[in-house]
């Protein structure tokens, strides 16, 4: 059990004709007819048609999904979250353990895997917590969970504050050669902040979360990772100084992967002026300079993964004054279109960098099978339309929640079909 998916219906058998097959990892960029038989890609043959304005991409892999199960199934559950993932072109997602109860032992993890086996529309891998109950005091049952198939460990939602515990966690994870996915935030520096600290927070009168709260903790975590030769993945990087720390640690030989979210790559704290709680997340939307640094780092491959930090919240919780509302936004169903439209179309990031960061690189970061469009491979792919512009409409999302920061955005890159683990997981009505 590394990643689990339900065996719904028959394996897919179909031919996807005349799309531009784009799979940088397999070295393919050509118009082709792709034949899938019983869930396996059996032929990738040159297309004879005139082209369709469609891209066939390796399916996406999300390293940072909150499925809210167990505990808040009113916001999301394994069925709805994986359906939302399929609608976004994802074939594998990694569920964060900050649920109620916390995924801090093998029994909880196994019970979730059991649900996934009957309900998941795409593969679900589970991340175990680093500390018991996310309390930051004692290590969780990391080895039991590793044996049960955990792909990484994380106390996401909060930092591992105790440096001694963090060191012990690196050592424990290394026993099974697994990475720690770290939410880096110095809580004393973050204080009671609700948005980025800067000119906008000063003008609005909202308490700020300084970039230093993140970058100081990133630097500390990387020093410990380096010393322990641990595998480390920095979750939701939001500012330039964190990138500098990652660069320095890599130069010193640390094994670091990192992720940025679509919202941090595309939005800034200017959006918070609307005081719409759908622009409230942690880390917060930063200033334009930080956003540009993230985009440049993605283009250069320094940010090797894009993750959604898909964080569903009930409507009534977000429907409150900004300071009262909880942190977090959903992202599975908008990630590719907003990134394609916002970064690839204007030429800021290559399609290759985007697809690699959404598929191959995250798969490698957590030792998951990397989706590939090649003969003999299990079909894990998505078909997207890059011609027609459409509106991002959260009310039409398959997620149970609606708290999107991209509501009302216009985008291209609609996902038309997702085949995950050899089965058709999602098909858009437009197809």
């Amino acid at each position: 059990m590394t990643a689990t998916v339900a065996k719904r219906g028959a394996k897919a058998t179909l031919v996807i004709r005349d799309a531009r097959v784009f799979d940088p990892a397999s070295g393919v960029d050509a118009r082709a007819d792709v034949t899938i038989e019983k869930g396996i890609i059996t032929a990738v043959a040159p297309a004879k048609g005139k082209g369709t304005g469609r891209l066939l991409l390796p399916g996406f892999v999300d390293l940072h999904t909150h499925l809210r199960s167990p505990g808040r199934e009113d916001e999301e559950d394994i069925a709805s979250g994986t359906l939302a993932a399929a609608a976004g072109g994802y074939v594998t997602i990694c569920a964060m353990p900050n649920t109620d109860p916390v995924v801090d032992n093998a029994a909880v993890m196994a019970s979730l895997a059991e649900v996934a086996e009957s309900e998941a529309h795409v593969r679900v891998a589970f991340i175990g917590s680093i500390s018991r109950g996310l309390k930051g005091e004692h290590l969780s049952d990391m080895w039991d969970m590793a044996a049960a198939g955990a792909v990484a460990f994380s106390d996401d939602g909060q930092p591992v504050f105790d440096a001694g515990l963090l060191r012990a966690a690196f050592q424990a994870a290394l026993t099974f050669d697994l990475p720690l996915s770290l939410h880096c935030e110095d809580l004393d520096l973050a204080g009671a902040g609700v948005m980025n600290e800067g000119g906008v927070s000063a003008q609005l009168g909202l308490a700020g979360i300084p970039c230093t709260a993140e970058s100081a903790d990133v630097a500390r975590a990387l020093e410990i990772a380096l010393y322990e030769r641990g595998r480390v993945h920095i979750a939701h990087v939001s500012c330039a100084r964190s990138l500098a720390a990652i660069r320095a640690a890599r130069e010193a030989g640390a094994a670091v992967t990192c992720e940025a979210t679509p919202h941090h790559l595309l939005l800034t704290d200017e959006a918070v002026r609307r005081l719409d709680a759908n622009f409230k997340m942690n880390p917060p939307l930063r200033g334009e300079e930080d956003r540009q640094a993230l985009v440049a780092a993605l283009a250069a491959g320094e940010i090797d993964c894009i993750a959604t930090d898909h964080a569903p919240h009930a409507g009534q919780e977000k429907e409150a004054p900004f300071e009262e509302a909880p942190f977090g936004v959903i992202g599975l169903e908008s990630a590719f279109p907003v990134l394609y439209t916002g970064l690839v179309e204007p030429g800021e990031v290559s399609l290759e960098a985007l697809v690699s960061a959404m598929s191959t690189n995250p798969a490698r970061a957590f030792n998951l099978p990397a989706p590939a469009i090649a003969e003999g491979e299990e079909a894990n792919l998505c078909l997207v339309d890059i011609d027609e512009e459409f509106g991002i409409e959260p009310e039409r999302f398959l997620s149970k929640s609606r708290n999107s920061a991209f509501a009302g955005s216009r985008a291209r890159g609609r996902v038309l079909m997702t085949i995950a683990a050899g089965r058709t997981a999602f098909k858009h009505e437009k197809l």
Partner: protein
Amino acid sequence: MNRNLLSINDLSREEIESVLGTAAKDFLELSKRDIKKVPTLRGRTIINLFYEKSTRTSTSFELAGKRLSADVVNVRAGSSAAGKGESLKDTTLTLNAYRPDIIVLRHPHVGAPAFVSRYTGAHVINAGDGKGEHPTQCLLDIFSLQREFGDLKGLKVAIVGDVLHSRVARSNISGFKKMGMKVILVAPPSLLPRGVESLGAKVAHSLDALAGMDVIYLLRMQRERHEGANYLPSMREYISNYCVGRRHVAKGQRVLHPGPINRGVEIESALADSEENMILQQVEAGLAVRMAVLYRIIVDNAVPLAAGEAEVRNIQAVG
């Protein structure tokens, strides 16, 4: 005036002059009469919805409404359904069902008045939202200064003290600048918000900066928000460096304070009792200005939604 007063930036300079003209012409003298009441807003309903403690703001809004003959209802959140966990949206929808004409809101969170305005057809007046804004305080301060100095253009004002936690500072920086004044903030770095330069005011860290000012605007030290934060080495040291006394006030300078004052913290007791301060004029102005705001927000919105037609817009998603 627009249909709501959420921020001082909802008003242009001309509108500020116009509203304050109404306060001066129609309402300032009223308080000095034996019969302090006019029938202007008879039949109108005003709900004062206060989620935070307040003396002068709530008193003056209540008196202002009553002297205009409106029916005024005061709702204190601690003693209402809001204290039982009702959301701000539901409290608003409930109060809106009574078809009020105006809701005056004091709330501990920034943007709460704008939030409330989405769920009611009533005019919403911000009476202080967290560290955000306090537009009627700003109006009454401008009013008080105009009565003292006449035209405010070119006047220099120092805003002194706990800028970090002050909604008054945020509204007044904008409002004073709008009136052509030059604003300097005087506070230790820890009591200035990061990014303060984007507010368009100069910054100084010493009371030496008070020399050459026309107006010294003191802010209340919000000690209740300082617990455990180490903003200051100690309050004693703050006082020895930043407490403003008569010796800091030059001839011709005037001292304002939005109240409540902390004697011996931001203002020496002797200064609080001296002729150099305008604190009680500010309180008096507050009543006339709030009467003008209540009156004008009704009459300026020429076709006010009749009671019974109160429109509840967009009850669904935010944004």
